[in-house]
Structures are given as C-alpha cells and as structure tokens.
C-alpha cells in the first residue's frame, strides 16, 4: 500500500502543474493548491516506505528467448520501467521539496498577481527531478532531464530579466548539443548491452559478458561524460549555467540550482556505477571538478552583480561534489553526497536572502548598493551566516562536508587536492565577505532608490528555516551521513 506513494511523488506534482496552469487568473486558488502540494510533497518523501516500483514490462523468463544474448545471463533482468526508492532518494527529494516550498512561499509573498504557467514549470520541474532520482534507467533519466532543461528555460523566460530570451536561447542551443551526445552515449550502451536499465548494464559489464573496455563502451563513456558536464554545469558549461541562475527571479534561481544539483547527483551516480572501471574515469572527473572550483570562485570574485556572484560560487561548489566522486573512496563519495545536500540548501538560502536586496532596490549591481543592514538587519545577519556555511565555516553544514572531503583527499594520498579545496574555500569566504560588505555595510549611496520599504516577513522566515537546516546538519551530520556512508560503500 505504502509503495504506491513512490509513483505519487511524481504524479502529484504533475497533476498540480496541470491544475495551476488551468487555474491561471484565479490567484487565491492557485496559491492554495500550490502550497498544499508543496507541503504534501516532502511529507510523502518522508513517509513513503523504501522499495521498488515496476511499471508494465513482462516476466523476464517469458521473454528470455527474445532478448539479446547479452541479457540472457542477467537473473534480475528488469524489462519494464523501474523506480527505486532508497534512503538517499528520500533525503534529496525531501530537500528539494523544502527548497521548492520555501521558494514558492517567498514568491507568493512578493507578488500579488501569480503566473499559472510559471508555477506549471516549477511543478513539472519538481516532478521531473523526482523521476530522475527514482529512475533506474538511463534513457528515462535522459527524458526527464530534457523536461527539466525545458522547464529551466521556461523559468528564465518567465523572469523579468532584460536578456532572458538570449540566455534561454543560448542554453537551449548548448543543451541541444549536450543532450543528444548523452543520448548517443546511451545508444552505444544499448548497442553493446541491449538494455538501458542501469542494474542490467552493471550486471552485464561486471560479469564480463561483454568486454568492459570495448571501443563502443569507451565511446559511450566519453559521450555520457560530456553530457554529464552539461547536465551539471561543470566547465565548459559553467558560464551558461551561472548566467541561467543570474537571469532568473531569485526564488526561481533557488529552485533552478536545486534542479541542477539533483541532475548532477543522479547522473553522476549512474555514470559512476556503469563506468567506474574505465582507467581515466576518475582523473577526468577530478580535472573538470578542479576547473569548476577554480573558474567558479575566480569568476565570482570579478563580479559586480551579486546574483552572478552567487551563481558562479554555486558552480564552484559543484566542483566539490565532483571532486568527491573523482577521488572515489567511500569517505569522498559520502562527502560528495553530503556536499550536494548542503549546496542545495545553502545556495537556495543565498539566492532567497540576497534576492530580498533585489526586491527592495530592483538592482543587483553592487556598485549601486550599500547600507542595507539598516533596512533589514535580521536578513543581513542570516545571509552572512549562509555565506559562512558556503565557505565552510564551523559549525555549519558546509564545514562538515568540506572537512570530510579534505580528509578523504589526504587519506587517498592526494594532498594537492586537499590544498586546492582549502584555498578555494578561503577565496569563497573572501568573495562573499567582500560582496556582503559592499551591499550591507558600506555607506548607502545617495541615489539609491527603494521599490519596497521592507522585505516580506515570509522571505525572512524562509531564510531562517534554511539556516536552521544548515545548523542542524552542521551540528548533527550523522543525520544524513549514516545514510550516505553505506550507499557510498555499495557504489565502490
């Protein structure tokens, strides 16, 4: 009975998306429907029992004679679409649910007139990232990612940014190259293995039914790795990803980055499971992760627009996640997953928190800002603490995941990676404090105009909730690491 909740985690946001689109114009009703679903969604993730949900398909013994020879030896063959709901999915779906709820709550408080299509896009995105996390099938993951990408484009178009169409178009063009490359990689795996189910692919490759180093599989790795870089926003896609975040409404950017982190984790785990045996797999991940970290913070340092600064810092933080996968030990993968959970929360906090500055002044140019601590002192302090969490200052969650990552690099005999991670964290801290000083502490410019006199109480509430989660995960990291550790052990 409880297992029915697994598909409901995808179905409910889809139904909600359709409803809010139909209800466009009836603001009160849209608000209630969205909030109820946004509250129900993380609750379902908590109460659903772990398990597997099969959609259609046939008994594999009945169709075994019709299957390619490669699959005949797979005893646990899954011929239909399969959703697997494990504890790790529970954590990430819950966190996405919290971010979406708080972002929507903030959006409702900032706008009297709501947009049905905008809410439709958000809920379709939520349904897609949930399905992406649950799916045990690389083709379905590709399909859901494409839907996420389209919803991301839609969220940008729905913003009021002047160059939203240009950014959306550029993202679509790059996506239309990265997406098909991912699909082509899946095609190569299909050609060799005969299945797109991840468990079946791993079973076939690990038992040497096919040559693990066969040229098509290496091609598949290269193409899927390229696709993963696009999905995650790692270099060379870091610029467009950060541009995407900075063009969205701040509460929309919080949701967009959450989607990106989930896509990165879901595809990262899938690629890790399938290709971990490839000799240059881990070095490739480490190189691109280091590039993301270095380029992310150095470009953040140069920004005068605080939305872009957070966007680049978010890309830099993605590098930490990749680094954990690249080191490839149980501790490092645990650190990577923990870092992903932390980034989801911290970046959302910063986007919503700094977003209140944009709400007040309608500008995100730090040269035009100053003295805002007198307008919103509570928010200023919470944003500062959020920045500390991102930079890895104790006692926040960012500190726990980063120290775990540094420790894992040292344990793996890679002290140079630990040094880079520490330096990048210090630069992140410096970048953030500089922006904070400019926006909140330096004298208020005489020509600074305010669109609103004070920030909505709900925005303060949302940021406070996210900060409390950061603090709880920082003080009690075992809450999540006890789930990540066995998962990481199984992965390696």
């Amino acid at each position, binding site marked *: 009975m409880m297992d029915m909740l697994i598909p409901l985690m995808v179905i409910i946001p889809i139904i909600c998306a359709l409803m809010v689109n139909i209800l466009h114009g009836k603001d009160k009703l849209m608000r209630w429907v969205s909030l109820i679903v946004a509250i129900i969604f993380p609750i379902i993730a908590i109460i659903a029992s772990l398990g597997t949900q099969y959609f259609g398909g046939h008994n594999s013994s009945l169709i075994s*004679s*019709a299957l*390619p020879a490669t699959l005949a030896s797979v005893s646990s063959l899954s011929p239909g679409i399969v959703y697997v709901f494990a504890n790790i999915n529970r954590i990430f779906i819950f966190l996405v649910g919290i971010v979406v709820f708080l972002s929507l709550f903030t959006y409702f408080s900032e706008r009297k007139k709501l947009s049905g299509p905008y809410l439709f896009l958000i809920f379709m995105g939520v349904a897609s990232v949930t399905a992406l996390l649950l799916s045990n099938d690389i*083709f379905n993951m590709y*399909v859901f990612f*494409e*839907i996420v990408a*389209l919803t991301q*484009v839609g969220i940008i*178009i729905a913003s009021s940014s*002047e*160059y939203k*169409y*240009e*950014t*959306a*178009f*550029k993202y*679509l*063009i790059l*996506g*239309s*190259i990265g*997406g*098909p490359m991912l*699909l*082509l990689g*899946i*095609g190569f795996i*299909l*050609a060799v293995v*005969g*299945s*797109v189910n991840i468990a079946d692919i791993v079973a076939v490759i690990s038992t040497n039914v096919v040559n693990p180093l066969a040229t098509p599989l290496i091609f598949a790795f290269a193409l899927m790795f390229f696709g993963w870089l696009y999905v995650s926003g790692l270099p060379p896609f870091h610029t467009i990803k950060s541009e995407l975040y900075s063009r969205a409404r701040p509460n929309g950017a919080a949701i967009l980055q959450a989607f990106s982190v989930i896509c990165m984790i879901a595809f990262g785990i899938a690629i890790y499971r399938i290709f971990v045996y490839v000799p240059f797999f881990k070095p490739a991940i480490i190189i691109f992760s280091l590039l993301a970290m270095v380029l992310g913070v150095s470009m953040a340092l140069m920004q005068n627009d605080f939305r872009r600064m957070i966007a680049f810092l978010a890309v830099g933080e993605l590098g930490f996640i990749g680094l954990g996968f690249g080191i490839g030990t149980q501790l490092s993968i645990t650190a990577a997953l923990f870092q992903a959970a932390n980034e989801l929360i911290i970046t959302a906090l910063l986007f919503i928190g700094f977003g209140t500055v944009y709400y007040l002044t309608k500008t995100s140019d730090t040269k035009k800002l100053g003295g805002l601590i007198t307008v919103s002192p509570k928010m200023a302090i919470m944003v500062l603490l959020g920045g500390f969490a991102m930079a890895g200052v104790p006692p926040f969650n960012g500190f726990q995941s980063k120290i775990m990552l540094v420790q894992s690099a040292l344990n793996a005999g890679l002290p140079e990676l630990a040094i880079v991670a520490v330096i990048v964290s210090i630069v992140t801290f410096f970048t953030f404090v500089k922006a904070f000083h400019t926006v909140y502490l330096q004298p208020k410019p005489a020509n600074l105009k305010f669109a609103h006199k004070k920030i909505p109480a709900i925005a303060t509430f949302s940021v406070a909730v996210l900060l409390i989660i950061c603090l709880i995960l920082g003080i009690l990291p075992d809450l999540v690491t006890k789930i990540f550790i066995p998962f990481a052990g199984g992965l390696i």
Partner: protein
Amino acid sequence: MIMSTQLVCLFAAGAFIVIGLFAAIFIDNIIKKIIGIAFIEEGVNLFIVTLGYKAGGVVPIFLENMSPDWFVANSAYPLPQALVLTSIVIGASTLAVMLALAMVLYKKHGSLSTKVILGDKND
C-alpha cells in the same frame, strides 16, 4: 546487401550528426543553427533505431496469426524503437521552443545573426 542497409543507416546517422554539429557551432544564422540541431537529433535517432534492425525481420507487433516462436525469431528488437519514439517527441518539443525563441529574438533585434543577437547583450 541487407547488412549494408544497416551500415548505410549508421553512416547516414554519423553524417547527420557531424553536419548538424558543424551547423550548430559554426553557422551564424540562428535558423540554420536550429536546422543543424534538428540534424543532430535525427542522426542520433537514426543511429538508435538502426540498432534494433533485423535483417529480413518484421515489425515487433504480435498478431493473432503468428506463432510465438516465429515471432521471436523474426521480429526486430523493439526497445530502440520505443526509445526513439520518445526521443522524437522530446526533439520536436525542444525544436518548437527554439523556433518560438528565434521569432522573439528576430522581433527584438531585427536580425537572425547570432553575433548581432548575442553581441547586443552587454549587461
């Protein structure tokens, strides 16, 4: 002869992808870029659907007058076809959004040149 049919399809798929990549990366006109992207998508679809090709096979639809053994021996592998069907839908959706954006961008900038459209963006 039949084997060469599959090979021809694979070469055609490769050609589609390479031509599409060239157009998407190097051609300035956004409509031609979009056409290039359509080439890439169709090339990938052709590649995948070719994987399910079976020499002298039949479509994988089981009819009443077929014996199960004959069907298993002669039908093409249906999984690639199912995947491509979904992929076509996704490609069409992406293409529609891109064309809509191209129209908006043309109205805004009065040009279809990428240099003009993205060059104007200076904030």
